[in-house]
């Protein structure tokens, strides 16, 4: 197994993005997906960083793909999606809308926000040219194993969500704006205040969710620290690590050590904690009774 870095889900200032990808180029990640996933309104503020980031990552020997938006509704978002296809890099589809714009012979990747729950869908995507699929984080290990086997037969690399706050839901409504008594169209980009999303607790103070514009995330950071062997055995080809604001290069290095046999699951989990927003970990979607559960507790 190797490591794929997913697109940054959050809204960071351009100089932060620049530093992030400069540091990422020095990590042992095999490939990187970048681009705006969550909100097309954010893109103009940081898209100037994308060419430099691609250049630095490719110079460091990493494969680079560009993500589509996760929820495409507006005309300019449709155009943005169509234009992505002409940039000469693999496209990671995170909304099936993008399939309409792909040419027949254009190989593509499929991100975790596309519903690939079964062999039939995986086969159908492979027939259309999918060469790499990151499965939805909701899937249990049993389903992952079935799909990894199917992927191996089809020549599709199958990835699993390895690290990061879980992308749980998308909406037409911007919750960041709503928390500031604003509508989406007059959001004033308040999501920039929360580089890992804005925490949401229950009335009893239980850490629960985080909002990030139109997206709802888990407050816990999911990690496959304890499932590396099982995923490897199942034939999973890569772990997907999702960017966070602190200690991400260290995080990538720690997962690399875990994959190469340098450290065990417990050690990885404990080493991740200081960098993880809020410090809570989970792995319940893979092996527990519910997504929020943590096998290391």
């Amino acid at each position: 197994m190797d490591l794929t870095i997913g697109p940054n889900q959050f809204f960071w200032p351009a100089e932060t993005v620049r530093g992030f990808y400069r540091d990422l180029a020095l990590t042992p990640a095999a490939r990187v997906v970048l681009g705006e996933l969550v909100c097309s309104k954010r893109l103009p503020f940081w898209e100037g960083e994308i060419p430099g980031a691609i250049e630095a990552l490719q110079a460091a020997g990493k494969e680079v793909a560009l993500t589509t938006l996760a929820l495409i509704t507006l005309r300019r978002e449709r155009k943005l999606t169509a234009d992505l296809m002409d940039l000469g890099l693999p496209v990671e589809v995170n909304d099936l809308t993008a399939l309409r714009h792909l040419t027949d012979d254009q190989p593509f990747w499929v991100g975790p926000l596309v519903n690939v729950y079964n062999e039939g869908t995986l086969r159908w995507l492979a027939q259309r040219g999918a060469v790499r699929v990151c499965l939805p984080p909701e899937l249990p290990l049993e389903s992952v194993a079935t799909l990894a086997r199917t992927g191996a037969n089809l020549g599709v690399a199958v990835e699993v969500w390895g690290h990061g706050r879980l992308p749980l839901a998308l909406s037409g409504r911007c919750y960041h704006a709503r928390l500031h008594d604003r509508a989406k169209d007059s959001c004033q980009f308040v999501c920039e205040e929360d580089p890992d999303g804005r925490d949401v607790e229950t009335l009893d103070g239980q850490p629960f969710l985080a909002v990030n514009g139109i997206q709802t995330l888990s407050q816990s950071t999911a990690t496959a620290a304890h499932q590396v062997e099982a995923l490897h055995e199942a034939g999973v080809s890569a772990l997907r690590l999702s960017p966070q604001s602190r200690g991400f290069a260290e995080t990538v290095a720690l997962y690399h050590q875990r994959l190469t046999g340098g450290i065990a699951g417990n050690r990885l989990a404990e080493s991740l904690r200081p960098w993880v927003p809020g410090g809570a970990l989970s792995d319940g979607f893979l092996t527990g009774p519910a997504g929020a559960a943590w096998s290391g507790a």
Partner: protein
Amino acid sequence: MMELVCPAGTPAALRAAVEAGAHAIYCGFADETNARNFPGLNFSREEMADAVAHAHARGAKVLVAINTFPRAGGEAMWHRAVADAETAGADAVILADPGLLAHAAEHHPKLRLHLSVQAAAANPDAINFYAEAFGVRRVVLPRVLTVAEITAINREIDVETEVFVFGGLCVMAEGRCSLSSYATGRSPNMNGVCSPASHVVYSEEPDGLRAALGGFTIHRTPPGRPAPYPTLCKGCFTSGEQTGHVFEDPVSLDATQLIPALARAGVSALKIEGRQRSRAYVAEVVRAFRAAVEAEAAGLPLPVSLLARLTEGQAATTGAYAKTWR
């Protein structure tokens, strides 16, 4: 006239809906293949065949929802559901999963396919793609669109659109939400349930009734006040200095006043949510909406008093249909 598509969780509700004037009824088999997989609801194979015969004899259609995402290693159950719906004489099946759509298009070429709201096709490119790839004839639009956007979509597509006008309201893009399984392990996509009752615990506490889902407090209701069901996205939470309904208030959708606008937007069918509702509720809502779509088709004003009664005492919203909701 716009087609009125009405819910039925039981054969009795289906008969009531037909009698009340439903043009079409949607329902599902009693298993994980449909997104309202609740105990005691839905149809056996025999009941489905009887229901179709009953509806057809009275000029109504039956649409079978097979709109969860088949489990890896277990797709046969979903394939069987599609085959059985066709055998029962269903007028269409409502599907969401691309793999299942591909299967249906290949193995059941005469069966009419509708794209479920669970597929969340939210723009003309996506809709045209589903139409070209699978021959989908109608798309149930996700509840993230404004009326103006629906109008624009209908100008760019050749298939029919169906929109929700009444009942429960998802605030998330349907089929793209795993909040429920994060808290409970059971989700709409995989199990056909959201915020399942099996994982709800109520506890009487000094300050009122606490309702928890999978151990997470969803809301607290002061003594003597009616407690809403703890649906996760309608819960009361805290974020920083603020406490409130972060995602959505405990409201339901009521777009009755938008019926003329939706007709002008080119919408073919109006859908009422509520397969878990009683026969009496279904009959009342269907009767009111049938009168409303008839009035609309005749160019008459909507029978307001009839519709107002349905939401009496309940908070309602027009949801994403109004741009300010976002």
